[in-house]
């Protein structure tokens, strides 16, 4: 498979550039390449970071002295709500995802991520969603209920106006981006590694990002569901969180923190991945305990989902329940401790160089360990009761998030700067930046622990003199401005280095991972030929690898076919299985995100008809997106590959689309089962939950509808099995028939929804049934549409024996419809009858 090219390297690069090169001017908006998209994520994240930081400065200015009249309480509420929301949703997660989008293909020895258009779509959703949220501040309509938007404060009765709607709609829009990034990264890490890069040779950063991506896939959907339910309650009057109508505000807290606590680790783990990547380079030895670190990362990923109730210790949960989550909260310190000890052992046994990135890493270790210790203190229920909602919690949170994320991120930015510019930053400015930030941070937040222990609650816009809070607040405010100067120094250094920094040369830090085998800055295709990987430290093993890659001496060194290609590999062994062909630049991601923006703005303004039209337009664009795939003339009509090379993925049964659909449906499934959880939760806990004596649902009609759905899925499975065996006779006709039956089934479901006497604005019981049926209808209506499109593609020769892959992708959707249908049937029909209600 690996071929040596006789063509000159310069000519080869020109040819690759013709296929992979980025357009300039306004056409640059159509770029889908991961390098550009990753940089856009990080630049946008930096802008949002500065906005969030500015809000923090205003908060600290107001709190510097007792009873300062700088900011009134209503503005203050908006400031702290937006500060938290911007930092968590618009800076931390997109920033680490952006860094991963930029780095992962390079580290894995690939040319791009496997779904480039999805990355671009994610970026535009992030940009537009973030802009919607932040624009609320300029309009004086910023959300003001705190970054976790607790009900009933955020309900229409207590928060009239559109402030909370800005949060719910803007954040949900941004979360589409996060989930898209999670799916993209997880599938890319599993399916597009360099030949021979087995799981045990994978760079640790890829391990961290694999776990983080899957955490995003599982962690974000509960909040997306919560936001949809709360928006439905606010805008349409549905009942979910209103006690009087059978709801429960604690349902919101569960949904929020089911997302919210893993979110902390979603932010921390990529940063820890940066630490595990940089430390060995500067300690000049391999990281101690590779297997232990993999264990710790997997352990942290899982355990972090078992802690959410520790944010709810004061809401009245049984002691034993609290004790479970208290123990789990302490337990998560164990895998984190494993990582800290591995890092310390690496430093201890290495020959560390204290360059600027290392300073930030040492700062991280000091601050994060302190934050982790106060975390264990907060895991103790009696202590948590004492300091709940005080400045102690604010201080702890900043130690974990700033220490655990910002410090490693800046270390990483300094480390990878030569990638972005080909130059090195100033050592002197870098050190000033670090020390000002480190001293300022500790002056702000170490002292804030005492402010909290002295009893100062969070989220108060001022305080009277004489309570002992004035001095620590003043120190914190001064410290925060010192920290701001440090951040400004870092930004100045980075800005200046683009012009004045000295040239970096190849692999300036003598690093071991493949991203340093590219040119600096890299070309859009990363590698002109794709190397095999025989070690965890490919560049330490072969320092000349970059040169032989540039000379085209490794895999896939041809481009005369005009396709963007990278290897598709086995998830476990990393052995090559197929060639993944990738889409080129496209306007579709931008158009889809723009039309979604119209949906969001229409919802904000109550223009529901326009929102519906825009949603249909979005669907149309996404279907067009799916159309330009596989054997389509604009994708890969010519399937010929070089002798000895594997086939194109669209000519097999196991391309990345199959994995992408599966991972997306996992996220979708978490959202659905969160809805089912809400049903059982309210049934069990809500004080005024009043199910009718007899279920309003027509059980027999639903049963028949479900049986029809089952028959369709069996038929589709049979078709795909036949196709696998190479039999594609009457494929088109069979697909048309299944689409027609699917339409009939969806019509039956819509009849059930219309015929059921539901009062979703009067009772949470009916509201949840309505939402569940609506969810099923949406999915069951899309399934025949997808099937009809497949039939059409068969007619055009885009799907069939030659390109059999797509029906297997659509089958997953049908399977998902069947699973959710019967789970709903159990919850809505059988369960109430079973318990006699």
């Amino acid at each position, binding site marked *: 498979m690996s071929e040596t090219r006789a063509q000159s390297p310069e000519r080869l690069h020109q040819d690759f550039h013709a296929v992979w090169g980025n357009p300039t001017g306004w056409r640059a908006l159509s770029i889908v390449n991961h390098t550009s998209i990753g940089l856009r994520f990080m630049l946008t994240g930096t802008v949002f970071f500065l906005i969030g930081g500015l809000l923090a400065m205003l908060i600290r200015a107001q709190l510097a002295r007792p009873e300062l009249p700088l900011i009134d309480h209503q503005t203050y509420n908006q400031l702290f709500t937006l500060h938290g929301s911007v930092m968590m949703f618009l800076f931390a997660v997109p920033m680490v995802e952006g860094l991963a989008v930029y780095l992962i293909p390079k580290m894995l020895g690939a040319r791009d991520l496997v779904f480039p258009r999805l990355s671009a779509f994610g970026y535009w959703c992030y940009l537009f969603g973030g802009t919607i949220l932040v624009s609320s501040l300029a309009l004086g309509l910023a959300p003001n209920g705190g970054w976790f938007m607790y009900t009933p404060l955020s309900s229409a009765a207590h928060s009239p106006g559109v402030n909370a709607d800005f949060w719910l709609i803007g954040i949900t829009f941004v979360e589409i981006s996060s989930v898209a990034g999670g799916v993209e990264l997880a599938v890319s890490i599993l399916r597009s590694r360099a030949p021979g890069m087995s799981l045990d040779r994978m760079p640790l950063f890829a391990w961290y990002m694999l776990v983080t991506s899957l955490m995003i896939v599982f962690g974000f959907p509960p909040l997306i569901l919560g936001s949809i339910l709360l928006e439905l309650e606010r805008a349409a009057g549905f009942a979910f969180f209103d006690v009087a109508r059978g709801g429960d505000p604690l349902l919101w807290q569960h949904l929020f923190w089911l997302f919210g606590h893993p979110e902390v680790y979603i932010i921390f783990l990529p940063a820890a991945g940066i630490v595990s990547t940089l430390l060995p380079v500067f300690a000049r030895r391999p990281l101690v305990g590779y297997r232990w670190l993999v264990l710790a990362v*997997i352990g942290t990923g899982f355990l972090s989902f078992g802690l959410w109730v520790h944010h709810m210790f004061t809401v009245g949960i049984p002691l034993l329940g609290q004790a479970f989550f208290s123990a789990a909260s302490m337990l998560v310190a164990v895998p984190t401790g494993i990582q800290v000890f591995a890092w310390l052992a690496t430093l201890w046994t290495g020959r560390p160089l204290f360059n600027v990135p290392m300073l930030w890493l040492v700062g991280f270790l000091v601050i994060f360990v302190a934050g982790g210790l106060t975390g264990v203190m907060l895991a103790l229920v009696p202590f948590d009761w004492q300091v709940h909602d005080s400045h102690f919690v604010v201080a702890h949170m900043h130690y974990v998030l700033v220490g655990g994320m910002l410090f490693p991120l800046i270390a990483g930015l300094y480390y990878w700067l030569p990638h972005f510019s080909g130059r090195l930053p100033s050592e002197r400015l870098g050190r000033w930046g670090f020390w000002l930030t480190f001293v300022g941070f500790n002056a702000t937040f170490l002292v804030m622990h005492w402010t909290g222990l002295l009893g100062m609650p969070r989220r108060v816009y001022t305080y009277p003199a004489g309570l002992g809070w004035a001095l620590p607040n003043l120190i914190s405010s001064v410290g925060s401005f010192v920290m701001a100067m440090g951040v400004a120094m870092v930004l100045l250094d980075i800005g200046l280095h683009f012009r004045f920094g000295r040239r970096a040369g190849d692999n300036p830090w003598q690093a071991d991972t493949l991203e340093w085998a590219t040119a600096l800055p890299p070309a859009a295709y990363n590698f002109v030929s794709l190397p095999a990987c025989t070690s965890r430290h490919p560049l330490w093993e072969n320092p000349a690898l970059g040169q032989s890659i540039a000379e085209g001496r490794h895999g896939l060194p041809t481009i005369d076919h005009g396709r963007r290609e990278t290897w598709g590999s086995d998830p476990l062994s990393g052995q090559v299985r197929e060639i993944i062909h990738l889409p080129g630049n496209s306007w579709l991601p931008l158009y889809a995100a723009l039309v979604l923006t119209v949906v969001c703005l229409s919802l904000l303004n109550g223009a529901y008809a326009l929102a519906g039209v825009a949603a249909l337009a979005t669907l149309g664009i996404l279907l067009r997106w799916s159309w330009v795939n596989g054997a389509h003339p604009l994708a890969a009509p010519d399937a010929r590959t070089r002798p000895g090379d594997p086939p194109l993925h669209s000519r097999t049964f196991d391309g990345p689309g199959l994995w992408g659909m599966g991972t997306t449906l996992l996220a979708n499934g978490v959202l659905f089962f969160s809805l089912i959880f809400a049903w059982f939760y309210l049934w069990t806990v809500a004080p005024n939950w009043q199910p009718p004596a007899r279920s309003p649902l027509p059980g027999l009609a639903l049963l028949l509808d479900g049986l029809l759905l089952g028959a369709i899925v069996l038929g589709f499975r049979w078709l795909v099995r036949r196709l696998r065996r190479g039999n594609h006779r009457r494929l088109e006709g069979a697909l048309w028939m299944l689409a027609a039956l699917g339409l009939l089934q969806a019509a039956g479901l819509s009849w059930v929804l219309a015929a059921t006497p539901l009062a979703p604005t009067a009772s949470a019981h009916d509201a949840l049934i309505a939402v569940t049926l609506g969810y099923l209808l949406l999915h069951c209506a899309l399934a025949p549409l997808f099937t009809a499109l497949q039939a059409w593609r068969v007619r055009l020769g885009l799907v069939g024996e030659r390109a059999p892959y797509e029906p297997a992708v659509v089958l997953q959707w049908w399977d998902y419809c069947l699973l959710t249908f019967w789970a709903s049937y159990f919850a809505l029909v059988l369960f109430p009858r079973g318990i006699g209600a």
Partner: protein
Amino acid sequence: MRPGHPLQLALGLIVWSLWLVAVYAGLSLGCLLARPGDGLPATWLNGLLGLFTLLTAAWLFGCAWWLWRAPPPALAARRFVVRVGAAVHLLAALATLFVGLPILTLPPCL
């Protein structure tokens, strides 16, 4: 599932997650449907949850032992999966016991 299957890297902690959901939901349902005597240090519900916890932990310990003793596969990546998978199961077993420990001492419904 074979010892070298990549899902072994997650299986133990998936079981731990399901166990946590089950004991938390079981506690809530137990207190709702058949509330045991308030204030008693231990009740039938503690017994039930404790037994479930012990069975889960025993199964996880068993899996960890089985993986540890499995003949090493020829492929290095599979050997890696077997070793880390064994450790994941062991971690999950210890986590089950540690998080379940309060079942021994605390009344369930207060």
